[in-house]
């Protein structure tokens, strides 16, 4: 009899617990609502339009005509012969993607190599001074990216500070052609996105327990070994975040390659912009944008899975 009473109480307790859990779930959903609305209206909706447009035909004066076509995707890989309409493989656009990925990857590595010592330097300062250095890092954000890119342009052009000072100390006779090369784009990308690398790296390194570095020194690790076996693994979350934050915007960069690359060697961003402007091929522009997105998502999945494998062991 006691057991029966007991199970009755248990059932009521379970019932109450279920109700509380349902309440909690509902409240959590409500908290999520603003984000869902923003993502829906400004993210999914435009993306759907892009997806639809990529399967339509281009209008003569821009825009689209409502005729289904997969031409945009075909055009990405093949060239249509103007006379007999046969398709032949063309690597033009693939090479633009390849170049863009190469440049963005290079800029990411460059930003990591410059950003890591910077972040370590800031993290090793006394806490009272760190804000000052962080302030210096974020200072460029106070100016528009366009203006900053023009500033880089002025510095590296043939008559710019770099060339003039190199000439004046007699290191070179002729100005080095930096502007309107891949190297200029590479420099510009590093410069533009360096803070996105430094800040997450700093956030990781700031939490690094310096006593662990001492412990490693004590256990016969040289400076390089300490870096490799203790500091870098501990900073891994920051390295992953920084690389993602530099690589993705770098891949889709528009202003930097336009101004510093002279627009003659295209990056993906310029290719897409061109389709909505001069080329008046909105479906192809949409397709190019979607392909970029798929590339980014796939590389992210691969990267996070790879980086996460060792990062996970942080527990």
């Amino acid at each position, binding site marked *: 009899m006691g057991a029966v009473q007991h199970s009755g109480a248990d059932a009521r307790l379970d019932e109450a617990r279920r109700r509380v859990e349902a309440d909690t779930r509902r409240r959590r959903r409500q908290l999520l609502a603003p984000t869902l609305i923003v993502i829906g209206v400004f993210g999914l909706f435009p993306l759907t339009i892009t997806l639809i447009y990529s399967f339509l035909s281009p209008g003569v004066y821009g825009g689209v005509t409502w005729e289904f076509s997969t031409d945009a995707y075909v055009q990405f890989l093949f060239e249509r012969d103007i006379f007999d309409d046969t398709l032949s493989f063309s690597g033009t656009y693939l090479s633009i993607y390849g170049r863009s990925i190469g440049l963005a990857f290079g800029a990411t590595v460059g930003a990591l190599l410059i950003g890591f010592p910077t972040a370590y330097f800031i993290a090793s300062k006394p806490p009272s001074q760190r804000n000052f250095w962080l302030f210096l890092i974020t200072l460029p954000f106070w100016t528009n990216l366009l203006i900053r890119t023009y500033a880089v342009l002025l510095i590296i052009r043939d008559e710019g500070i770099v060339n003039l000072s190199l000439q004046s100390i007699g290191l070179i006779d002729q100005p080095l052609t930096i502007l309107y090369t891949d190297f200029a784009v590479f420099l510009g990308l590093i410069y533009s996105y360096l803070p996105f690398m430094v800040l997450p790296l700093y956030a990781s390194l700031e939490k690094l327990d310096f006593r*662990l570095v001492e*412990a490693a020194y*004590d*256990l016969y690790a040289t400076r390089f070994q300490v870096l490799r076996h203790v500091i870098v693994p501990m900073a891994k979350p920051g390295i992953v975040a920084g690389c993602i934050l530099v690589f993705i915007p770098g891949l889709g960069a528009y202003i930097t390659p336009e101004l510093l690359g002279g627009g003659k060697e295209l990056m993906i961003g310029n290719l897409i912009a061109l389709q909505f402007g001069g080329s008046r091929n909105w479906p192809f522009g949409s397709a190019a944008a979607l392909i970029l997105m798929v590339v980014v998502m796939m590389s992210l999945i691969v990267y996070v899975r790879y980086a996460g494998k060792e990062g996970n*062991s942080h*527990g």
Partner: protein
Amino acid sequence: MAQDTADMSGKSAKNMILAEGVTKTFGEGDSKVHALDDVSISIRENEFFTLLGPSGCGKTTLLRLIAGFELPTKGNILLDGQEIGHLPPYKRPVNTVFQNYALFPHMTVARNIGFGLEMQGRSKSEIKQAIEKMLALVQMEHLANRQTDQLSGGQQQRVALARALAPHPKVLLLDEPLSALDLKLRKEMQIELKRLQSETGITFVFVTHDQEEALTMSDRIAVMKAGHILQVGRPKQIYNQPARRFVADFIGDINIFEVDLDEVSGTTGRVTLPGGATLPADLPEADVPAGAVSVAIRPENMRLADARDSAAKLKGTVTNVVYFGAGSNVHVALKGGSEVIVRTTGEVLDDGHEVGLILPDRVQVLVD
């Protein structure tokens, strides 16, 4: 002054660490701090040596100088006859157990223990063997593949010990390693540390502010204060024959009497207590000038007696009795006004009881 009497523990008398005139200052100008001031010390091979003192006395700085985390401002440090004062930590055959353990959180227990050997470039099989041996030594075999943050404080302590012992250093430095543990675990680890030291035969240099810990574990103790070493000796010496007032005061309960010293001859003399009674006295150094000095008497070295007992050289009144299980501390107000503590395991007296105090045969004179 720091008396260093002949070793009677039967252990090797070879010096493992020799510090000569080591000074360490931090900061510049007005804010300059002498963490260590002209410290000389010798630590023998296979010895459990403790640096004991209050916080800020320089004991941790001395440890960090031996480890190589700090470089001496002046002076030499020799390890096994070789000058190491200016070598970086990774070139010294010395390992440290840190106060907070400083285990690598991104590595398993086993990899933590093998880290030192891995950095030395030892072979995989050698590392694996050493890890197994160390895990067995600290009884952690079952946790080899755990992450370190899944361990309790005591287990982390054992891993830290195993990690520091695995490369078989010449000296193991321990920086207050037990301070984060609760009392029961601390007692266990004290015995454990002692066992590890005798099993491995490695010289241990242990830093603590806990005098009981120091007395329990050490072969020898150096008592430090304000960047100086005041006294070095075996636990019994430090406890029974403190040379300095600070040492006497810092370690255990003690009664200090202001007395007159005369008949000085070498390291002995005779003191006159306030009541007029005289006692033979041991001096901490030869030829202490006669006159006003302090002597120290431990509470357990005095006995309560009847007030009329002729052997009782001091008389007073019981003011308080503090019971602590194994005995009682009886507070006695002397006729002169000062108060002393006498430890007794015998009958418990009432407050206000008139008592006599029987003093030890000899007393220890202190210098400041």
